[in-house]
């Protein structure tokens, strides 16, 4: 179900001396089934933005529509919205509280008032989706490793069967291996279920490989909203706001500058590999 943002602004501490405009007239359309990367420097407003998508924050002005309905209108079921638009916060493992992994994942569906059987089926399916083994199900979530805790927390949101999944910096604080595992898992989940996924990050390398649309935020505004390669073409502007294109894009540019006739319109390592092989075959 599509989400539409119409001129959404958010001001923190309105009417005080410390007022901060975190979102400035954002208009976006998020259609079904896209894999979106939301990128911006710290403080660019990306976390604030995603909290508007499931009604945790209320826009100071402007409106958010979910499936054609204004989410702030009278009688709109916020609880249902939150089950449809699943939001995984930064460091989601800090929200775990149950005595074992399985019951923690059950928390979301339980709040939806489902039958016990349905709750457990969903929890089981969600844990499988994030790649958790059965052996861990009845362990305390606090005994798991950082990466595993994070998977459990993501499963806790997935168990509500959301149609849109938003992940706020899902790789923060993980080692490279844990990071790749989580991202691959999310990409696999996207392929298998076809849900909309919004990946919030400040690292281009993280998202370039997976997403088919990138939204770049700067100072509460949308700066770019396009396909990855179109966005990365503006790498100089990106650098000016403290971001960067993926490292592989720079390598290709260097190669080009040194007289190799390769395209620098490349965003992933896989594409770069193809490009270089093709170049040497032609010679």
């Amino acid at each position, binding site marked *: 179900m599509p989400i539409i943002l119409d001129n959404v602004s958010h001001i923190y501490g309105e009417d005080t001396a410390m007022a901060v405009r975190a979102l400035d007239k954002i208009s976006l359309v998020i259609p079904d089934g896209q894999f979106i990367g939301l990128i911006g420097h710290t403080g660019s407003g990306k976390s604030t933005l995603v*909290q508007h998508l*499931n009604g*945790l924050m209320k826009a100071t002005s402007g409106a958010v529509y979910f499936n054609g309905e204004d989410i702030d209108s009278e009688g709109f079921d916020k*609880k249902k919205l*939150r*089950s449809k638009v*699943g*939001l*995984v*916060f930064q460091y*989601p493992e*800090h*929200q*775990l*509280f149950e005595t074992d992994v399985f019951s923690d994942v059950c*928390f*979301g569906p339980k*709040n*939806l008032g489902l039958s016990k059987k349905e709750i457990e089926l969903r929890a089981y399916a969600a844990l499988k989706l994030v790649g958790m083994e059965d052996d861990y199900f009845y362990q305390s979530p*606090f005994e798991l490793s950082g990466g595993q805790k994070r998977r459990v927390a993501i499963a*806790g*949101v997935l168990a*509500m069967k959301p149609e849109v999944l938003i992940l706020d910096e899902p790789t923060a604080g993980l080692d490279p291996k844990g990071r790749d595992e989580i991202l691959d898992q999310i990409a696999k989940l996207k392929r298998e279920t076809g849900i909309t996924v919004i990946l919030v990050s400040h690292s281009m390398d993280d998202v370039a490989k997976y997403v088919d649309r990138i939204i770049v935020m700067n100072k509460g505004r949308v700066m770019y909203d396009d396909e990855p390669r179109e966005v990365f073409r503006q790498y100089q502007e990106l650098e000016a706001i403290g971001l960067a294109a993926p490292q592989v894009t720079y390598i290709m540019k260097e190669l080009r500058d040194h007289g190799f006739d390769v395209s620098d319109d490349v965003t992933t390592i896989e594409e770069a590999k193809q490009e270089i092989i093709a170049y040497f075959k032609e010679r």
Partner: protein
Amino acid sequence: MLRDITLGQYYQADSVIHRLDPRVKLGTTIIFIISLFVFHGVGGYVAAAVFLAMVIKLSKVPFHFMIKGMKSIVFLLSITVIFNLFLTPGQPIFRLWKLTVTQEGVRLAVLLSIRLGFLIIGSSVMTLTTTPNQLTDGLEKMLKPLNRLGVPVHEIAMMMSIALRFIPILMEETDKIMKAQLARCADFESGNLIRKAKSLVPLLVPLFISAFRRANDLAMAMEARCYRGGDHRTKMKPLHYERRDYIAYLIVLCYLVAGVVLGKLLPILLGSVVA
């Protein structure tokens, strides 16, 4: 959600009150509070009101900020007022079913609400104009003499400043966890008391865990910087009194004298006017 609590929060501004030595502000607050309970009669309270209004004006903190702090004690205040109103024995004014409102009761209730109101506003002026660090620095220096009696003054001050520093952090953390659980469709509002209490478990467990984690991290960071408690520890910005601080003390003294004199004098003056 929880941002409305101003009690114990600092409001940044550039004013004489902000620049005063924290010891002056601490001392004045204590004197002010004691004076509220010592003064008798209307005169004393007039003096207190004038003094408070002057300090607020000088502090450049918007008045509604202090009122915000008041909101949190309205409940407590109304209970005290009601109890005093109905349960003080004395000259009855009127009866309401089985309860009697007495003259003394009205007097006490009014007096108490003024005292409590001034007390809260007075102490929020101090916390709004003094950073927690300054506050504990001031306290530490004021209580230094107790060190000789074996009281670990520095350690107490350190604990206090850490506790104060943790209030906003834990508040923010609560906000975050609450949102995370709301995103999982948690319901903190509906249901009876027992269900409501139960619904707090997903909030409180992560909060406690994070508090312990933070405490642990902090202890480690202090250890790593060779923190060894108060002995032979010097300060980067040692406190010393300046001219404005002596002036402030003088003003406080004037206030005390004015309060006492007005308290004694006003009834006599009023009496002579009436006569």
